[in-house]
């Protein structure tokens, strides 16, 4: 299958209310042709509602859904021609693996011989060759997941939707399938919308991530940008580990936290209140005699806990101002951090280039 058959999806002012609650609040989202876009959000954020609206299983109150140039919002699900992998897999228990995968082809009137070849090809893509005659109840969870995937793309849909397809698998298999799904996506080149609440999964697989909260898009960007340049508190807090320090602006317009000067001016002068987002792995333990320079923003405090976790370790550092920072470091080679002990005084620094400043939302 080649990229020319993939379709962009354009969602315009999509709104859906359940009672007084907005499940989707005038959502606008452009999904590019052939990209892997993940809808990421906590449960109840509206991500599944949005996916179901694209599939046609729920009817929005207003708005538009375009596949390419075609308005789809009124089209019934069986005429939308999108593949979907369900969280429960929804494999038909009264059909064999091959019959499940062949079902969409049969509905499209494809003759037996071609059907058989395409089912076999699809099963090969998901590494299930030769299991066509098996019953669904004879498969493991991981195999069912692959059958559901094969059934979703065997009829060459222009759009593929996935609703938390890996959530029922154990951690190891999940991580393996994430990479595999990425491969299959690259191979098929189909526009893919993926729903998950697992930020790590989203970061691993996506071309772009749409972070969604309370029925609204919080940020839509590449995984790197979402992680390194969150545009608001929700995204900073939801993606990755972070500590947020509220900054104060002094008379010279500098943003400070306690005695540490964080920035010489606010990134956007129209906003007064700013927070500093600190990723634990970006902090460095500084030498005892270090002083704050141009390179680092320095914080001093006392180690309250030092915890070893195998591949990484972390220390909790209580700052004089009262806030607690998490400092994470690798254990692969001896680092400054590996010498930390509870009760010790320590200075940690953040490289100025790595600063993440976000406007603080008034409480």
């Amino acid at each position, binding site marked *: 299958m080649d990229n020319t058959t993939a379709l962009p999806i354009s969602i315009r002012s999509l709104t859906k209310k359940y009672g007084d609650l907005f499940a989707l609040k005038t959502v606008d989202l452009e999904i590019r042709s052939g990209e892997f876009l993940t809808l990421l959000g906590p449960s109840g954020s509206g991500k599944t509602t949005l996916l179901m609206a694209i*599939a*046609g*299983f729920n009817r929005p109150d207003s708005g538009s859904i375009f596949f390419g140039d075609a308005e789809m919002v009124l089209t*019934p*699900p*069986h*005429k*939308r*021609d*999108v*593949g*979907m992998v*369900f*969280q*429960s897999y*929804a*494999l*038909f*228990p*009264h059909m064999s693996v091959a019959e499940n995968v062949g*079902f*969409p082809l049969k*509905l*499209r009137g494809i003759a037996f011989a071609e059907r058989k070849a395409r089912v076999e090809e699809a099963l090969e893509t998901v590494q299930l060759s030769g299991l066509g005659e098996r019953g669904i109840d004879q498969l493991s969870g991981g195999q069912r997941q692959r059958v559901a995937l094969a*059934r979703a793309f065997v*009829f060459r849909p222009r759009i593929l939707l996935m609703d938390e397809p890996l959530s029922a698998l154990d951690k190891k298999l999940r991580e393996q399938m994430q990479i595999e799904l990425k491969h299959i996506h690259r191979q098929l080149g189909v526009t893919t919308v993926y729903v998950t609440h697992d930020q790590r999964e989203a970061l691993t697989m996506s071309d772009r991530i749409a972070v969604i909260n309370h029925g609204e898009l919080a940020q839509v960007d590449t995984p790197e940008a979402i992680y390194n340049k969150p545009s608001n508190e929700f995204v900073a807090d939801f993606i990755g580990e972070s500590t947020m320090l509220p900054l104060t602006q002094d008379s010279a317009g500098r943003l400070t936290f306690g005695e540490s000067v964080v920035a010489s001016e606010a990134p956007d002068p129209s906003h007064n209140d700013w927070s500093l987002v600190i990723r634990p792995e970006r902090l460095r333990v500084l030498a005892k005699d270090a002083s704050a320079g141009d390179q680092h923003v320095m914080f001093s405090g006392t180690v309250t806990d030092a915890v070893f976790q195998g591949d990484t370790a972390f220390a909790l550092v209580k700052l004089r101002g009262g806030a607690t920072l998490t400092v994470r470091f690798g254990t692969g080679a001896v680092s400054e951090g590996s010498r930390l002990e509870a009760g010790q005084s320590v200075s940690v620094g953040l490289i100025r280039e790595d600063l993440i400043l976000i406007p603080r939302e008034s409480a």
Partner: protein
Amino acid sequence: MRRTVSTPGQTQALNEVALSGQERREQWTLLGLSTPAILVIAIVVLVPVGWLFYLSFVGSDGQFSLEHYKKMVEYKSYARVFMTTFQVSLLTTLICIVLGYPLAYFLAHLPGRWTGLFMLAVLLPFWTSLLVRTYAWLVLLQRKGLLNDLAMQIGLWDSPIKLVHNMTGTLIGMAHIMLPFLVLPLYGAMKKIEPDMMHAASNLGASPVRSFWNVYFPLSVSGLVAGALIVFVLCLGFYVTPAVLGGGRVVMVATQITAILEYQFDWGAASALGVVLLVATIGVLYLAGRFFKFDSALFGKG
């Protein structure tokens, strides 16, 4: 309780004997607890059935004889009774399927808060006497009954139609009484079908009609077969409704047995009829069991 202590030289593993003894005692306790149930089944089911079986092979002279079974083969009236029995049972089952499938579907897809109310409506007949319900139909269906009066008033027909004391009345009454037996297992099977199944079918390109026939119906069929079988088997031995609403014109095995006992006091002939009906019922269940995988909730693992 003496404990076995193993030493390296012994063949038994540590505490092996004591542990297996404990397991055996638990099994005996369980068996002991189920003894009353086993006794009840033996006294209430096995002994009477065995007695009937014995009686059916005793002739009028008190000796072993096959005369009752011979009569059943020779006289056409017996064949007709069995024909009627199977005919009524089959038709009742079909009517129940036609009425019950949509009803079960409706119940299974109601929003939660309504299910209780409508389920109550389905189960209500279970809590009133069978005889009362049957006579109620007599009141409704007779020549000057509610239904005939109403139909003539609005001009559906001019003179009273015979709705009772015949096959029509029997089928109406039996279908009404049997309906819950079909609906309940069917409802159970439908409730187990995930909504995602139907989503998946339509997502893959199936129209609502195809989704139903290719996915929904096959997934509900185990409940349908279980329900239909219960109805059919119950109908085979049914007495009250055909006796009251059939008015002597619908002679089924059960009514025939009563007649034989009342007018001829022939225990042997009545027993033989009962035995043949029992064998036929077991045969139906056996055949059905070979063709269908039963709903495991009703019949254990199929």
